[in-house]
Structures are given as structure tokens and as C-alpha cells.
């Protein structure tokens, strides 16, 4: 089995494995930069990145340099960060809530973000002061707060397992904010605006510049560090929250820390690039099939697989239809669903 071989190599030579992972990521990023409507050869890509990063002085056409450094590289980096963040968030929610269908948007984040975005762009709330991204971020945080408040009220008198309350509160919150979004669009948007919002909701990486990179990278690192720090606690949820408590986990504290931390990470990503679906639901399952159940391995594995997956989906979104960029959410599902089906079937055979 190739997966067992992979696991074997990983446990015996962890440093080799980390090195390999970094190389694969670098190769993927370079590919993501090189492939596009007009392909750029790898040498030029590497030289342009060297020019931008280390002030090397390779003679490259300024337009190529600009396209590579300011557009494609930033887009690819943001794609990688979003993919990683969504996959890690999905992993955490699935483990904490012990629900295979949990995804990063379970807690109302995408619904809230879209409400925030339409409030700013269509209803004109705080126009000139708030950008669409900031509106989306506010909306996401607000919706998440609402869902958490609702689940806290719903589980006040209960002890032990509150995951059902959290999930139901998330559904209620999502529905409410989706309805608000639809209301605003129906009331005041023209067809062009409605199309724009739909496009954004399916994921749109075209606005990713260095400013976005400078937010996405630290947020991802902080979120991932939080999850790895709690990896053993996540392992302890294997047999449910009561079992976790009886092996010494402060269940509520861990739930609050991790849900809040990963939700904020997702909110930041969604506010920049829209609600890219599928990654957060499916990558954690794929990672479990390959790497087993230890979160110390699963968390970084999800981050890497999520990053790779979104980089390649982004490439796909740019080249499938010549001259047109597909919403990346469409590509993640189109590529992801068959891949996931394969993993599922192989997992069954094991």
C-alpha cells in the first residue's frame, strides 16, 4: 500500500519528510505561478521570484516581473493559505463535534461573510469607510458570535456532549444570514451586482495581492500553531467528549479555544477570497484515510494537502475555459468530488 509506505517513511525519517513536503510545496507554488492564460517558463518564474524576494538582478521584462511577482505569486500564496486554513478548520470541527459532515462554514461564517459583503457593496452600509473584505469579516464574526451565543443558550442546562446544539445553532444562524443576504440582493441589487456577489461567494482569488498575503500567512501560522498545540487534546475526543474529559481534557476550554481560533482564521480567509467550498469538508477525510488518527500528524498534513489542492484547483480555474476564470469553488468541487470518491473506495478496501 502506498499510504503505508508513506507513513513508514514519515515515522522513520521525519526530517526527510518535512524537507520533501517543503520541496513539493515550492514546486506546486512555482507551477501555480508558471501556468496560466499565458504560460511562463520555470526559469523566468524562479528568476522573477529571486528578483522580488532577494533583489537578484536577473534581466526579465518588467511586465513579466510584474505579472509574476505582483499577481500570480500572491494569488498562489493566498490560495495555498486558504486551502490550508480551510482544511485545518474542517479537521478541527469534525474531530471536536465528532461529525463527519462538519465543515468550516458550519458555524455561519460564510453566511455571515456574504451578508457583510452585500451590506457594504449593495446596501451601501459604511460605504467609503468599509471595504467589501472588511464588511465580510465583520459579518462573519457577527454571525459566528450569534451562532455561539445561540449554542451556549441551547446547551446551558445540559452537560457533556453539546455538539448537537452547536451544529443546530450553526444551521439556524446560517439560514438566518443567508436569508438576510438574499433579502438585500432581492431588494436592491441589479443583475450585474447579483452576479458579482455569486461569483465572490463561490470563491474569487483575483484580488489577492501582497497585502492579502501579509494577512493570510500570519493568520494561517497562528491558527495552525494553535491546532498543533492542542493536537493531543483533539486525539482525546476520539471516543467523545465525556471520554475526553475523563482522560484529563478540559472539554469546554478546548472547544472554545479551538472553535474560536479556527473560526477567526476562516473568517479572515473568507473575507479575502469568498467562501470556497469543499476543501474544508473533504481534505480532512482524505488526510485521515492516508495518515490515520493522530492530530499531531493530521493537522500539518491537512494544511499541506489543503494548500496543494487549492493551488492546483486555482490553476484549473484559470486554464479550463480559455480566456475566462472559473470561480474556484466550482473547480474544487469538480476536481474534489471524484478524487474524494476514489479515496473513499480505496479506504473501504483497506
Amino acid at each position, binding site marked *: 500500500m502506498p499510504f503505508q509506505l508513506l507513513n513508514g517513511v514519515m515515522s522513520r525519517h521525519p526530517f526527510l519528510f518535512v524537507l520533501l513536503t517543503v520541496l513539493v510545496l515550492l514546486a506546486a507554488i512555482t507551477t501555480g505561478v508558471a501556468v496560466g492564460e499565458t504560460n511562463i517558463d520555470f526559469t523566468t518564474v524562479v528568476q522573477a521570484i529571486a528578483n522580488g524576494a532577494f533583489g537578484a538582478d536577473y534581466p526579465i521584462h518588467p511586465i513579466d516581473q510584474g505579472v509574476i511577482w505582483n499577481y500570480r505569486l500572491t494569488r498562489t500564496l493566498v490560495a495555498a493559505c486558504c486551502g490550508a486554513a480551510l482544511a485545518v478548520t474542517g479537521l478541527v470541527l469534525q474531530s471536536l463535534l465528532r461529525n463527519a459532515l462538519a465543515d468550516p462554514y458550519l458555524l455561519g461564517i460564510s453566511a455571515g461573510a456574504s451578508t457583510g459583503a452585500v451590506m457594504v457593496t449593495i446596501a451601501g452600509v459604511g460605504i467609503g469607510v468599509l471595504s467589501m473584505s472588511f464588511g465580510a469579516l465583520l459579518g462573519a464574526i457577527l454571525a459566528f458570535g450569534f451562532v455561539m451565543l445561540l449554542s451556549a443558550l441551547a446547551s446551558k442546562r445540559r*452537560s457533556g456532549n453539546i455538539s448537537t446544539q452547536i451544529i443546530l445553532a450553526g444551521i439556524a444562524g446560517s439560514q438566518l444570514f443567508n436569508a438576510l443576504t438574499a433579502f438585500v440582493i432581492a431588494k436592491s441589487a441589479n443583475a450585474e451586482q447579483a452576479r458579482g456577489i455569486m461569483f465572490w461567494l463561490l470563491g474569487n482569488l483575483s484580488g489577492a495581492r501582497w497585502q492579502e498575503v501579509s494577512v493570510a500567512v500570519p493568520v494561517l501560522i497562528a491558527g495552525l500553531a494553535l491546532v498543533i498545540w492542542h493536537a*493531543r487534546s483533539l486525539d482525546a475526543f*476520539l471516543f467523545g467528549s*465525556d*471520554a475526553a474529559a*475523563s*482522560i484529563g481534557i478540559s472539554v469546554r476550554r478546548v472547544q472554545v479555544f479551538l472553535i474560536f481560533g479556527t473560526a477567526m482564521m476562516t473568517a479572515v480567509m473568507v473575507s479575502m477570497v469568498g467562501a470556497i467550498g469543499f476543501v474544508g469538508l473533504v481534505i480532512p477525510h482524505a488526510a485521515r484515510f492516508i495518515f490515520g488518527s*493522530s492530530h499531531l500528524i493530521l493537522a500539518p498534513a491537512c494544511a499541506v494537502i489543503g494548500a496543494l489542492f487549492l493551488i492546483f484547483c486555482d490553476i484549473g480555474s484559470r486554464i479550463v475555459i480559455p480566456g475566462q476564470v472559473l470561480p474556484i469553488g466550482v473547480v474544487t468541487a469538480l476536481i474534489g468530488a471524484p478524487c474524494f470518491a476514489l479515496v473513499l473506495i480505496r479506504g473501504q478496501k*483497506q
Partner: protein
Amino acid sequence: MNLTVSNVHYQLGKKTLLRDISFALEKGERVALIGPNGCGKSTLLRLICGLNKPTSGHIALDDITVQHYPRRTLAQHLSFVQQKATTEELVKAEDAVALGRTPWIKAFERWGTAHQSHVDHALEKVSMTHKRHQHWHTLSGGEQQRLHIARALAQNTPFIVMDEPTNHLDIKQQMVVLSLIENIQRTMLVAVHDLNHALRFDRIIAMKDGRVIAQGKPAELISEAFILDVFDVHSRIIHSSDHPPHIQLLN
């Protein structure tokens, strides 16, 4: 490790589940908790394990209230084997047992030989060493239950609480688990649903309608009248020279 339960009441909504429960466990004692379904055995065990807070009264381990222990410290003193806990994750038998080391291992500590030897020893004790690499969902209910007990052993606590560990098991597995429990030298409080199993413990605490109605040594406590009183079932106790007494339930 002493356990003291004093005047514990527990109320959920308007329903009172436990009333005025008081008893104590001495270090090294193995005590069976019996009573009909719904009498509050599981609820009481959850309070003792700190999973719920009593409405009034208090529960103390070595004279410190259970609620005052940090979660991790409590898990170093007390382990809990639930009635039935399962998972759909692809996890190996050995890894399920290794979870017992959670209260003893730090976030970034390497999994060392000391932890591994606790796990090896626990697997050995429940005779599951040969299946350590098998996945959880390929094991039988009895084997899964033995792994839960191994997890509690790997947790290496002086006090073990079990909630009907032989429930859902066939008779052979019940015997295996029971003799396993008899061979564990720790302070134990075990909810037991089969009275014949309860006879094998040092002491019995009997509950009914949320109260403790009697406690004592099995031989002194268990009588036909007592069983009728607690369980509302007629019975006959058969004594034989080469076997422990056996309770036969009559219609």
C-alpha cells in the same frame, strides 16, 4: 485513595435524580454498585468522575472536592470506563489504549519508552497484545471493552470507576471481563447489572429511586427478600460447596 460521597443531591430540570447519597470507599476496596435501570447508578458515577456537578452535597477524593481538581490532575487519580464508547475513526487498538497516557504527557512531549511500557503492560493485562495493530472497528464488543479497560490501566490511576463494563457482551466475554476486573489491584467502583457478578466484589452498594438503600458485604447483604425489595423480582440463592453462591431468578 479514599472516596467520600456526602449528602449528594442531583437535580436535572425539575427531576431529582439523586437524593441524599452518602457512602465512602476505602483504599483498595472493590465495590459493586447495583440497582434497577434508571435508579441513578450512571448519574452517580458521572458526578464522581466530575462530568457533572452535584446540585448539593459534595464528593471528595482524598479529602479534596472532585470539582476542585484541575481536569488533568483528576484524570491522574481517577479513570472512567464508560458503558459503551465507540468511534468511527480508523484507529488501531494500541492507539486507543495510548489515549490513557493523555493526562501524563505534555503537548509536545515525545512519546517515550515509559509511556509505551504502560501501554504494553495494559494490553498484556487484558490479553490483547496480539491484536494491538488491528483497527478498532474490526474488533468484537468484548475486545473493545477490554481495550477500554486497558486504556484505564494505562492511565495508571489509583482509582477506577466503571459503568456496567459487561453490558452488551456475551456470557464468555462477561466472564473474561469480570475476572479481569478481579485481577486489577486498584480501588474500584463498578456499576454492575448482573447480581451474580456483584457477589464477586468486596462490598455492594444498592440503589433504588435515586437513593442508596443498603450497603454491605455480599454474603451479608444479598438475600431473597433483599432482591425482591430492590429489583421487585423473586429469586432463590443456591449455595454449593465448590462454587460461590448463585442467584437464580424466578418468574
